[in-house]
């Protein structure tokens, strides 16, 4: 059982989190208009209700004890269809939900927002929950793909850190609730890169040519390029996009790999030495090789947030709400710190983890406690994005008609 029982003394540090050698120096780029989280000021600071975990009798193989859902609602549905990112939900969460509620969880996975959007907009899907990233949320709302959330059925919302709520892409969280957040910025291998880059612009230095990895994401990378030119990441101006294309073309010659799936692999393998990736990848890469560092670019990193949303045609609404409440319940959601350590928006989960010392096994079979995980998380500027970095960040948004321009520019540069 969590909290109460275990008394850890000297536990091994399983996740060695590198202390950043260069502390992030967030500087707001003068011309860019940051649309950071902080600008959307929460309407009211709600006092977080106290949370007391109640164990069930279900114990997982790794030692995790399934908590009791709070509240536990009776379900009529027999199953729930998740359409989520590949490898983004702890196995324990899935197992516990199925055991506690006795219904089947069907999980389909996607590895790109566009894939999810294409499937959903083609209609004829029976998904109950999807995980869209911020920039595509607006589009999905406009296309009528999502349904309004009934916040009365979402008590879990009270445990969320308000800085992740009410953001520009869904101002009142009518359609989405946050899942995980993160940034895209610069990563480098300190063993191999002698002069660490501090800004996106630095990546153009000839010494880095041939050693770069970039996300295969036209909006993020062209966005970063736009930032170096002093333009907005969401510009629709063909001239600006063209300029970014020309500028990026210089960089592209030195890019060895475009990979928005698992860039860390190439970093760890030594195929590439630096580039632009997102937080989670950097964190995991650092776990394998502590020399891999993450830097918030001077221009301001690209910030993003993955969210849960319910498709319009979801057939199992009761189960979908039950899933949201249970899977993000504080004594459940701290599992993310162990399994998928991105920026965690559930303050309740962090608070819970801080003081829990029940031992569970991590993926490598080592014993860890939530408290260790919490410490590692809080101490890492990679996962626990500094507020300044968040403020200076730029959020990608849908650009409508200009999207083909981005795509063409992207194809053109890569296809040369």
């Amino acid at each position, binding site marked *: 059982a969590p909290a109460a029982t275990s008394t850890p003394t000297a536990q091994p540090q399983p996740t060695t989190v590198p202390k950043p050698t260069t502390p992030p120096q967030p500087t707001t780029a003068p011309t860019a208009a940051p649309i950071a989280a902080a600008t959307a000021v929460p309407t009211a600071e709600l006092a977080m209700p106290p949370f007391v975990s109640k164990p069930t009798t279900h114990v997982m193989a790794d030692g995790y004890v399934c908590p009791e859902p709070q509240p536990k609602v009776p379900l009529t549905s027999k199953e729930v269809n998740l359409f989520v990112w590949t490898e983004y939900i702890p196995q324990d969460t899935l197992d516990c939900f199925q055991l506690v509620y006795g219904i089947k969880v069907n999980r389909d996975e996607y590895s790109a927002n*566009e*894939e999810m959007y*294409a499937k959903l*907009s083609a209609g004829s899907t029976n998904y109950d929950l999807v995980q869209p990233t911020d920039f595509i949320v607006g*589009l999905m709302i406009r296309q009528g793909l999502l349904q309004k959330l009934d916040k009365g059925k979402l008590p879990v919302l009270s445990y969320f850190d308000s800085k992740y709520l009410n953001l520009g892409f869904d101002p009142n969280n009518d359609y989405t609730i946050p899942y995980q957040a993160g940034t895209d910025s610069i990563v480098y291998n300190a063993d191999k890169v002698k002069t660490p880059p501090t800004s996106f612009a630095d990546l153009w230095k000839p010494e880095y040519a041939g050693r770069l990895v970039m996300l295969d994401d*036209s909006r993020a990378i062209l966005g970063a390029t736009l930032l170096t030119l002093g333009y907005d990441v969401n510009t629709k101006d063909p001239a600006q996009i063209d300029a970014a294309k020309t500028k990026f073309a210089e960089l592209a010659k030195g890019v*060895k*790999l475009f990979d928005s799936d698992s860039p860390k692999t190439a970093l760890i393998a030594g*195929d590439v030495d630096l580039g632009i990736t997102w937080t989670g990848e950097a964190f995991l890469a650092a776990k394998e090789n502590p020399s891999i560092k993450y830097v918030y670019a001077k221009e301001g990193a690209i910030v993003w947030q993955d969210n849960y949303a319910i498709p319009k045609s979801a057939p199992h609404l009761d189960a979908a709400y039950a899933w949201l409440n249970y899977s993000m319940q504080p004594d459940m959601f701290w599992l993310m710190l162990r399994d998928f350590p991105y920026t965690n928006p559930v303050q309740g989960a962090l608070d819970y983890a801080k003081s829990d010392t029940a031992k569970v096994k991590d993926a490598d079979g080592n014993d860890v406690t939530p408290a260790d995980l919490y410490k590692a998380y809080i101490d890492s500027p990679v996962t626990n994005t500094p507020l300044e970095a968040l403020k200076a960040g730029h959020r990608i948004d849908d650009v409508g008609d200009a999207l083909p321009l981005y795509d063409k520019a992207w*194809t053109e540069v890569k296809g040369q």
Partner: protein
Amino acid sequence: MMLKRLRERRSLQGTLLISPALLWMIVLLIIPLLLVVVTSFGGRDPDGNVIYQFSLDNYTRLMGVPSGGFDPNCAPIAWPALAAIIGLPSLVGILVRFVSRRAQGESRSAAILRRAFKPYVFVAAAFWVYVGVNIYSACADALYVGILGRSLELAFWTTLLVIALGYPLAYFIARAAPKRRNLLLFLVLIPLWTNFVIRVYAWIIILRESGVLNGILATIATALPFLGPFKPTEILYTQNAVLIGMIYEFLPFMILPMFTSLEKIEVSLYEAAADLGANTLKTFLRVTLPLSLPGMVAGTILVFVPVMGTFIVSDILGGRQVILVGNLIQRQFLDARDPAFGSAASIILMVMTLVITIYYTRRFGFGEEVTAA
């Protein structure tokens, strides 16, 4: 009377037998293809939905027609002029050929003239192509045509290398003792049964800089120091990696039909060729090769067509930098959310493969060897 009734009955039976397959093809092939054709003339709204209309924009964009039309001064006038001047004499060759063909048998001098001009025509043609490409890339937006060209090139090399690797093996198997033949063929099939994606993944492990290949090479280099210092090869995330992956994926599809063709050749034909004084090489060129052509044609289609359309190999092994038509199309349906443009690209791709395969099968004949096993 009875015969007519019988014929009608047989016609009815035939129709009944074919109809499930035909229905399937109409519903899941013909209609979808028509939908794609219709979509390809459409447009895109800001949210990426298809606007059904009739416009050739997608096609002109694919062909690289600049949005404002061609700039008349885009290419220096000197090029076409030069091309004309260089090409002019080769017209003589063509003319002679034309006239002599008309005249049913040519005079000796005409023949000499024609032969003399033959190499020249080739040179001129090469030059024309060169000039054409230059003018095109100067005046038009060569991006998409370039991608098509690259896909064609890759498909060409893949097919060629797959033949080069597959032919000897197919020959080897076809000439093996009948008992071993099954086993040998079976061994070719097994990799096919693993899984397309997993096979590509295996090549990542092999080809990466710290991968198995470099590991082996490094071991060799250490064992044989006189070869000089070892420098790891960098193959992964290059066009060569894609080529290797494609060859690996599609090699069995070439071997199987080619084996079927080669196995059918009777041994007595080799004996006859030897009896008539042909050596091994000549027997191969004059007997084996032509007789195995149908299998090669079938294999080529089974390799060329999927290579033209696939996007996974280039995705995974090409580091997302090797963009083929398949990738282009896939991006339009996903990342760029421009299904109309993607449809147009699909149509172009389909027409291109159709034209090439039809020409190819007409030229070399198409046997039943498409499949073996």
